[in-house]
């Protein structure tokens, strides 16, 4: 039984589908009058955030509280973290507090692995985004969103048979085409999504300028393209996911990855014109926070195809499922 969720690769096909199914159940409870479940009463979940992310922290906090867990928010940003040693000391402190699960966001790739493997804590470790490595719960909520839109009964690309109306329970993403666009090199969202969506049977295409793709990407289970128009027109994606691009990356100090925001937007932004290349059923996704006018136009962000606001809500259900399975159930998977 897997004790941690460090990478999307920790989940095999059955485990990934199961998390999505449990997340559906969790989402159903959230439509009730009384949202709170007693499942994790008496358990302690620590949100250990070494990096600002109100969005992710509040999502995990809401998830843990709705399962009746005690939540400790531990923000270590800007403290003596530069030395790194404090990760160990902080972990030992949390251990002493009796943390059953540690949800960690850290600017260093692999910090959750250290926490889980170095023997500093006995609790379960959930990776809430580590450096430029992974963000597995983001990938889960993206997969959840895609499945709901495209694999539920009555969905344009869904199969017609299964449980109740609108249900996607038990299904994967077999054969769906997902195009992920932008700064793959620095994106933990992209890494986790490539791994998870592939596990679930989707065909993933990454689109980016060559400077924003890692050397060594050849072994990834996806296609790679530098031509967004071609990928949208000929690839006929079912979902298009736009990644955040940081403006500072165009300066020499930032690495000089692209010449200007305007050129980036022209070549790789989801403009109104590109939106019109998409099949009618295609959804538009973004993990947030968005740079409107850079990687995504207002037309795209605010269009009816956009699932961007919905993704946030799905995040709580998915994180409830992960915490529940780690602490009270069985996450399954490979680890």
């Amino acid at each position, binding site marked *: 039984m897997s004790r941690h969720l460090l990478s999307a690769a920790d989940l095999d096909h059955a485990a990934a589908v199961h998390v999505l199914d449990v997340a559906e159940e969790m989402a159903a409870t959230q439509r009730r009058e009384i949202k709170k479940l007693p499942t994790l009463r008496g358990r302690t979940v620590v949100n250990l955030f070494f990096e600002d992310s109100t969005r992710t922290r509040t999502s995990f906090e809401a998830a843990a509280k709705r399962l009746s867990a005690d939540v400790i928010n531990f923000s270590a940003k800007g403290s003596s973290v530069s030395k*790194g040693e404090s990760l160990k000391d902080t972990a030992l402190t949390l251990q002493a507090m009796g943390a059953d699960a540690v949800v960690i966001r850290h600017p*260093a790739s*692999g*910090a959750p*692995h250290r926490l889980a*493997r170095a023997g500093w804590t006995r609790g379960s470790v959930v990776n809430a985004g580590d450096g430029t*490595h992974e963000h597995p719960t983001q990938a889960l909520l993206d997969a959840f969103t895609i499945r709901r839109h495209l694999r539920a009964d009555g969905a344009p690309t869904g199969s017609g048979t299964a449980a109740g109306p609108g249900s996607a329970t038990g299904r994967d993403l077999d054969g769906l085409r997902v195009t992920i666009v932008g700064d793959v090199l620095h994106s933990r969202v992209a890494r986790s999504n490539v791994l998870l969506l592939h596990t679930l049977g989707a065909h993933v295409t990454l689109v980016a300028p060559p400077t924003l793709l890692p050397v*060594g990407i*050849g072994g990834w289970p996806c296609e790679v393209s530098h031509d967004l128009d071609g990928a949208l027109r000929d690839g006929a994606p079912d979902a298009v996911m736009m990644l955040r691009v940081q403006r500072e990356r165009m300066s020499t100090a930032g690495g000089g990855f692209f010449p200007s925001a305007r050129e980036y937007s022209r070549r790789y932004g989801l403009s109104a014109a590109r939106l019109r290349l998409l099949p009618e059923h295609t959804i538009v996704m973004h993990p947030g926070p968005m740079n409107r006018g850079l990687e995504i136009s207002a037309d795209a962000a605010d269009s009816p195809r956009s699932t961007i606001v919905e993704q946030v809500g799905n995040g709580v259900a998915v994180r409830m499922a992960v915490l529940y399975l780690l602490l009270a159930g069985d996450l399954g998977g490979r680890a």
Partner: protein
Amino acid sequence: MSTTTPAPGGTGPAVLVRGARILGGEAADLLLSGGRIADVGPDLSGAPAARGAEVVDATGLVALPGLVDLHTHLREPGREDAETVESGTRAAARGGFTAVHAMANTDPVADTAGVVEQVRRLGEEAGWVDVHPVGAVTVGLAGQQLAELGAMADSAARVRVFSDDGKCVWDAVLMRRALEYVRAFDGVIAQHAQEPRLTEDAQMNEGEVSALLGLRGWPSVAEEAIIARDVLLASHVGSRLHVCHVSTKGSVEIIRWAKERGFPVTAEVTPHHLLLTDELVRDYDPVFKVNPPLRTQADVEALREGLADGTIDVVATDHAPHPAEDKDCEWAAAAMGMTGLETALSVVQHTMVETGLLDWAGVAQRMSTAPARIGRLEAQGRPLAAGEPANLVLLDPAARWTVDPAAMATAGRNSPFRGRELPGAVVATFLRGRATVRDGALVEPAGTAR
């Protein structure tokens, strides 16, 4: 017959080493006396000079000239929390070394005659191996202005190897001047080849594993571009260049190309680059974080081949001890470096001898003779023959042991080989006839109460 004068510093009673396989060849006796090898022969038990000598049974053991490390970080002065000259040279003796070159990146930097003489003196006081300080190429390793290389060469430390190790002398004009300048006293520039702009904040080898792990890539071209430039510079000015810790296949090819043209270039490889690959980084354990980074299996193969065919002259440890807290953290925050003195010979046996790539004579050449010659050490790296200084190591090639960093003499616990079973154990080390190691254990110098 003992007809030679005692070696300087040679002391202690005579020692008769019986039945050692010299360079892995035929078994022979060696008589050590007055700091020198007094005699070598099939049976010296009846020799008059052997009367009263302490007898060491070396049946089944291989005798090699005392190992010489061209690249050791002893950390003193400045980082005595990581290692001292005392602890580092104890580790060296246990690893079979009789001489080490102490790198200049101490605090203060070894960029003046005063500091190199201090390190030299600390080595003499410790007495475990000969300590030859490496001088910094530039003041403070800052890459701006040449350090007083001549003063260090003329000092009591007689510095011949100069290096900004840890930093690359990246300015082409400064590198050219350094190469030219040290020719006046037969010095060599040992370059840490790392193009700085291509490796800003780099964390591990750039390739498939770094792509997955989201760690900033350290491209092989950053090493190869500097080596290519430097071999051409060395040829242009006719000065000796030594390339530190070569880690990539491309680097081996460039050095091979340079040697084919007769360029005055030598190179070293570390034991860890002969065995370990970037696959080990997958769990983000910083014990595998090192500069240059662990590369791929193809690079490992090329390095072994290059060492076997002589493209790479030397195995050097790049022994780099760190206190536990500098490794007990997340990858990006961790220090780069690995300990190596006490595992070097075993790793070379494992990767080069047991694979048939080198015989023991080849190991002696690459771990003793060649590094001594590059460092211009006259009394090290000598043949095991009558009249030569009695610097030698006896190792048991049939032994197997499991690496336990806590049991090491070095203060550093950052061995990347921890938990591995390795072949070959150092049974005895002799420095000018005195046993620094006997039965695998350090022998405290007589008259000291440590």
